[in-house]
């Protein structure tokens, strides 16, 4: 009976390390191909852009109460992976005659829902307040409310909904 150590002694040391290195390279190669493939697959959404939102109808202009802060829901289409999701988002409309401003209902601070209290916009989450022009009056919000692009066509008010980057002082569209 020959013990393993005796056999090993007859084995040239270079061969042992050569086979070991090749095995290690093969293992590393397979892991790398798998890792890169799966990694790219997992982080892919970070490198795709969501399409531009179409114009959404908010109804006849004169039906929007004047001088009030009016909440309306708009249908937005979200490109989310395997689906196009028709979902709703809130916007706030301030109308003075023909003059209309539309604000996103998302707080520019951390994304809570904007609400109203008396004639002011507020965010109950962290106490930000804005005037009816969207200017910050109080609280941690880094900028005023985000106004949305709008137009009046055939007497109908239309808005293009957008999402903006939160937590920074400038208004940057997320795409």
């Amino acid at each position, binding site marked *: 009976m020959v013990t393993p150590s005796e056999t090993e002694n007859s084995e040239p040391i270079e061969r042992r390390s050569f086979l070991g290195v090749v095995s290690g390279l093969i293992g590393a190669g*397979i892991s790398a191909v*798998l890792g890169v493939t799966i990694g790219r*697959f997992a982080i892919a959404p970070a490198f795709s852009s969501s399409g531009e939102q179409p114009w959404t109808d908010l109804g006849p202009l004169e039906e929007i109460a004047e001088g009030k802060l009016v909440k*309306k829901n708009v249908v937005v289409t979200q490109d989310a992976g395997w*689906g196009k999701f028709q*979902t709703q988002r809130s916007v706030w409309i301030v109308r003075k005659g023909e003059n209309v401003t539309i604000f996103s209902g998302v707080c520019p601070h951390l994304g809570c829902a904007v609400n109203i209290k008396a004639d002011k916009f507020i965010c109950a989450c962290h106490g930000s307040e804005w005037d009816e022009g969207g200017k910050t009056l109080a609280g941690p919000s880094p900028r005023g409310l985000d106004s949305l692009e709008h137009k009046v066509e055939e007497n109908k008010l239309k808005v293009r909904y957008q999402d903006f980057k939160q937590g920074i002082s400038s208004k940057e569209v997320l795409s």
Partner: protein
Amino acid sequence: MAQSKLSQLHDWLDERTGIKQITHELLDEPIRGGARWAYVFGSLLLLLFGIQVATGIFLNMYYVPSADHAHASVAYIQKAVPGGWLVRGLHHYSASAMVVVAVLHLAQTFLYGAYKNRRELLWVAGVVMLLLILGFSFTGYLLPWDQAAYFGTKVGTSIAGEIPVVGPVQQKIMLGGNDLTTVTLSRFFTVHVFLLPLALAGLVGLHLFLFRKATPAGPYHNRDEKKVDRFFPKQVFKDSVAMLACFIVLVALAKYIPAELGPQADPTSDYLARPPWYFMPLFQLLKYFPGAWAIIPAAVLPAALFGVLFLLPFIDRRPERNPFKRPIATGLLVLVLGGAIGLIFLAKHEDNANPEFSAKLKEQEEEVKAFFSAPFQPQIIGGAAAVVPSATKVAGPVPDPPQAYADHCAICHGDKGEGDPPLLGVASKPQRTKEDLLKIMENSRGYGLKKPMPESFPKISPEDKQLIADWMALLK
């Protein structure tokens, strides 16, 4: 200097983890008779299981186990996500490879008589793992929810229902009801991604532990009795080369013959179901046993086969390991494997020889190709009445609905549209005309309603439909 720093680090780690002992245990295992290519199958199975776990976990980032969305999400993975074809392709082909390599591993162990000499539990754990692998195949096959998946599983669960006494209950448990539905998909998904992986991982650990306890059996002859290799490096090298070859084949298959995905399951179609290749022998056998005799291929033969496999090390207790001196055992292996392969070819041949079947199968193949080569179409979700806006609750009292509504619709939609699904607010959707309200009644699926109205929707006269639409238009 660098060397000593490295060995200092090694010592530091060893004091805290015992790494030197662990490496020694893992790599210095003696292999009687020397390293061999015949021993690579176990390591290959570990690689394949690793690939399945890694790709499977990440496929879940995009996959949705719901009958409504499963197919769209798999199509998205296959056609749209960068590298999705490769992740899914590897998962698909590794699954088949696991069946092949598990059978090779079992055949090698069988031929070498390596289940003998206190290796009964090691063998039994292996046979259980083969069953689990087949369970993975069966449950995973349904998940893409395409035609082949739906009808294949329909047949598979029906076969399970054929078994006397326990069959019907067993089938109902598998389906989660009387029919193949989204509930079935959820169950198969749960078994496929939680239960089976846990069970298989546990058994892999047990199998390896028992293997190390029993030590490798070595060759069946005594010619190399004096030769002993350590697991590292010679066997590790052979294992690595086999893994590399296997991995290259898997990637090449995923690239040049992409994992198939046919059109979404359509229960109303006259789809000609054919099982994946590893269930083909069973499929072919079913043809020979009409009516109640189907029990033989569906239950008796598989039960007998696995019964023999489980009991083998307890029945065959002769110490002889040379396959040439065990004619019954070797003959049985050749018969079962040869028979299975023969049945696969016979099934293919019969399909080709039958003009009706071959035409239909060809047509289905064309449908798969057409769907597969078409660009990805995202599924449209919501729209229409999916979300009732809070801002458009009904103002004031709702007028009484027409009699036809009360007779046919109120049972679900409520006396005044407040039921489930609700009708309140349907008229105030953007661009919704009275004509749309009429069309929704005809074709609710076309309007993307989450719960389409039942096929048995009672025939309501056009005049009554108009009255109902007029009334619905008031539900702003």
